[in-house]
């Protein structure tokens, strides 16, 4: 298994139109998307994107349709060329790669899962899953062995001789996932991979991904328009609006400290009891509370409230993974956070 690698996106701009380069400076100087479109007939796709993605983490890029999120993910494997900017992976700028280098980069460093699956309809599940290995020129026996392992891993054993049209949407996306994982690329790009699936199947597939990630530790870039999905699977989340990153941070940051009204509006319907963790709401450890019941720092807020109600106490001791007491959580703070307040001053 390859070591996880990080992705550095710096000062990335994308303008669509006949002469995009002519407008970069104007956009840098503050021309808005509407002005650019009305006065110059160019569409601003992305504006000054800077995201640093930690190796082996799940980075969610979230936004509504038209926010530029699908454009952004296509820059990472350069299915779309940027107007200006850099994408650095393993010390190399993807933007500067020649066509041959780019092909090698796509074959070995990245794999992609698509919203509408994008499977080859004339090929069986097995041949679809083996596609990435096939274009790399790996011999048939070996690529079938690898593809079969991943088909089994995503729960499609017994379907390898079927054609995609014989499978349901959820099963087709499992094939898409198996195809991407069979490549064993350190970077996994998922473009609204679950958006076309039913909610229950979507939840299921999120679980599959989180389980797999425990095993494979890839650097995953996950695009979604679904906030619940973003909060559930993202180690870090970048919120995109009109081609601009309006907030980056952990799920906790975004729910507790929305950067502006737009984000606040977005997160107001979130089930805070499930999303927020005890560690985000606790106060630092104090003396003299040693006899209170204990709760894990990673437990959810709802779990903390339930324990307080059961034990009929106002305070819980928060313990880290190693069993150390790291803080306390108070009933009134917990209720306040649950009801939509921000983090209490420590």
């Amino acid at each position, binding site marked *: 298994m390859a070591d996880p690698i990080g992705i550095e996106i710096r000062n990335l701009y994308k303008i669509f139109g006949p002469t995009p380069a002519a407008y970069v400076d104007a956009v840098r100087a503050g021309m808005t998307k509407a002005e650019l479109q009305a006065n110059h007939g160019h569409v601003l796709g992305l504006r000054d994107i800077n995201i640093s993605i930690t190796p082996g983490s799940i980075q969610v890029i979230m936004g509504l349709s038209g926010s530029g999120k699908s454009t952004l993910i296509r820059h990472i494997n350069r299915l779309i060329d940027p107007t200006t900017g850099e994408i650095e992976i393993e010390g190399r700028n993807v933007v500067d790669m020649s066509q041959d280098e780019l092909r090698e980069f796509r074959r070995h460093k990245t794999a992609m899962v698509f919203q509408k699956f994008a499977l080859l309809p004339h090929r069986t599940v097995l041949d679809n899953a083996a596609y990435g290995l096939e274009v790399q020129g790996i011999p048939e026996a070996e690529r079938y062995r690898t593809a079969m392992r991943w088909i089994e891993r995503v729960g499609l054993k017994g379907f390898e001789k079927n054609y995609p049209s*014989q499978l349901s949407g959820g099963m087709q996306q499992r094939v898409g996932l198996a195809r991407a994982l069979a490549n064993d690329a350190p970077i996994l790009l998922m473009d609204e991979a679950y958006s076309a699936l039913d909610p229950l199947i979507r939840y299921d597939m999120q679980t599959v991904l989180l389980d797999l990630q425990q095993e494979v530790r890839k650097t995953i870039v996950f695009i979604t328009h679904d906030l619940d999905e973003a909060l559930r699977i993202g180690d870090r989340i970048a919120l995109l609006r009109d081609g601009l990153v309006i907030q980056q941070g952990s799920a906790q940051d975004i729910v507790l400290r929305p950067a502006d009204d737009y984000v606040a509006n977005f997160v107001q319907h979130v089930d805070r009891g499930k999303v927020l963790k005890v560690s985000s709401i606790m106060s630092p450890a104090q003396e003299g509370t040693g006899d209170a019941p204990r709760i894990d720092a990673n437990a959810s807020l709802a779990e903390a409230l339930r324990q307080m109600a059961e034990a009929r106490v106002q305070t819980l001791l928060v313990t880290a993974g190693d069993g150390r007491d790291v803080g306390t959580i108070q009933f009134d703070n917990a209720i306040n956070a649950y009801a939509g307040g921000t983090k209490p001053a420590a």
Partner: protein
Amino acid sequence: MTWSTSFPQLDDSYLRDLKKVIDEAFRNFTRSYGDMIEGFFSPLQTLLIWSERLLTGTPWPIILLVVAGLAWGASRSWRVVVGSILTLVLIGLFGMWEDTMKTVSMVLAATVLSIIIGLPLGIFMARSDRFRAVLNPVLDVMQTMPSFVYLIPVVMLLGIGKVPGLIAVVIYALPPMIRLTNLGIRQVDPEVLEAADAFGSSAWQKLVKAELPLALPTIMAGINQTIMMALAMVVIASMIGVQGLGQPVLRAINNQYFTLGVFNGFAIVGIAILFDRISQAWGKRLQKHREASHG
């Protein structure tokens, strides 16, 4: 009012000179380059003679067996097999076996040639909008220009015989092959191609692993059309010496032999239907994976 009822045309003597100059130039061209051009097309002669010998030289029971085998292999349907054999048996009983084999060999040669020329042109046409803009009017001319008109230069250059006949048939039968290849490739789902790119396919890998297989149903329709158009041309081609079912038809027109014309006409219809059913059934079977059991 005469100026408005008769269209103001170029001077008669001018037009006469113009035609004379062009005819003269073409005749000179023919005289100086005719042999070279004939040499250039001589491999076609070899192909034609080979395919005609293959079909007329093979004993008829073997031809029947091969056709039955092809029909079964393509369609897996007894109706198509029985229909094909019955058609050929009737043709044979009515004394048209030899002519039919000559026509079939000509159609096969024309189809193979059309695929060899049409497939790459169609692919290139799908790649380049500019090439498509240039090629489209050329194809329009090829399809609508009355065949007799382009028979003239072909005969002047190459004389009477199989090769000019084949060229005339290919000119007529080629456009659907090119057009439908172009269409098929342009219709391939862009998301699938994006996926092929994302996994690092080379241009060639993308073509043979994604574009051509996905365009295949449309390309098969093009081949089917090409076969039908080639068959439709056999009567006209017989005017410049192509042997087969067209010649008796021609004789029937000249001498008003009604029955001779009808028999040979039905023989052409019969093999057209035979080709069509077999090639379509095959095209359909290639699409087995499209039979969805899920909505």
